[in-house]
């Protein structure tokens, strides 16, 4: 007797396990590692994040007073968040969106 029979018939009559993404978007879990952003009011350009980043996705340019972040290079390991003394980096639970180009995100300190 084929042993899968019961399971298959059960599957056939029950609802499919499919989440109809992207038409149905499930709530992201609170721990989900999504896109990063820099709060430049807090950042003191110490370059700690650049130093710990294992894939060199961050460039801190103290002279130009800005941070360049490459979401298409980032591993979402969040070492930068853990290591920033100023807690200037924060993450959302929204996943980084795919794109036609490799974006570079620039965060600048507003000039007074």
């Amino acid at each position, binding site marked *: 007797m084929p042993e899968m029979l019961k399971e298959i018939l059960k599957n056939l009559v029950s609802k499919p396990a*499919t*989440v109809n*993404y992207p038409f149905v978007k499930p709530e992201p879990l609170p721990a989900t590692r999504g896109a990063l952003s820099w709060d430049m009011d807090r950042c003191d350009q110490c370059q700690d994040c650049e130093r710990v980043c294992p894939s060199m996705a961050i460039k801190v340019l103290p002279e130009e007073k800005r941070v360049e972040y490459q979401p*298409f*290079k980032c591993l979402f390991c969040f070492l930068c968040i853990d290591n920033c003394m100023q807690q200037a980096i924060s993450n959302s639970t929204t*996943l980084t969106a*795919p794109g*036609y*180009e*490799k974006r570079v995100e620039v965060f600048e300190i507003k000039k007074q």
Partner: protein
Amino acid sequence: MKLMTKARLKSPWVLHFDTGSCNGCDIEILAALTPKFDAERFGIVNIGDPKQADILLITGPANHRNKTVLKNLYDQMPEPKLVMAIGECACSGAIFHNCPNTLGGVDKVVPVDVYVPGCAARPEQIVDGVVLALQKLAEKSEQLEKKEKKGE
């Protein structure tokens, strides 16, 4: 004529090639085909034959050995075709940026149409990426048809 474009959008068959990824993205591509995400909803079939595929999914940073294989596979695919770089290391080398045998991103070998971030790229992101790719496919399809009309 519009029917053809619609059919193309409804039936993107994919070919997956690993150019030295860590497997993370490969298993997520497979996960995108399995019940929870079921990419077959969009007509996506993992076809395994470059001559019959529409979208080439590449994972991994590409290296000196497999770049010829990759180029070959790309050339064997008939038009209209698209290339998606899945995962950070396929996009830019990411963690493998200083590995001596990697090229740092598959766009050094073949033109890439859609970049999907994430390490590993999650099935949701891959599905989003396919949606983007389909928009591009629609443009390509229309261009192709215009060309055909001119040719006649």
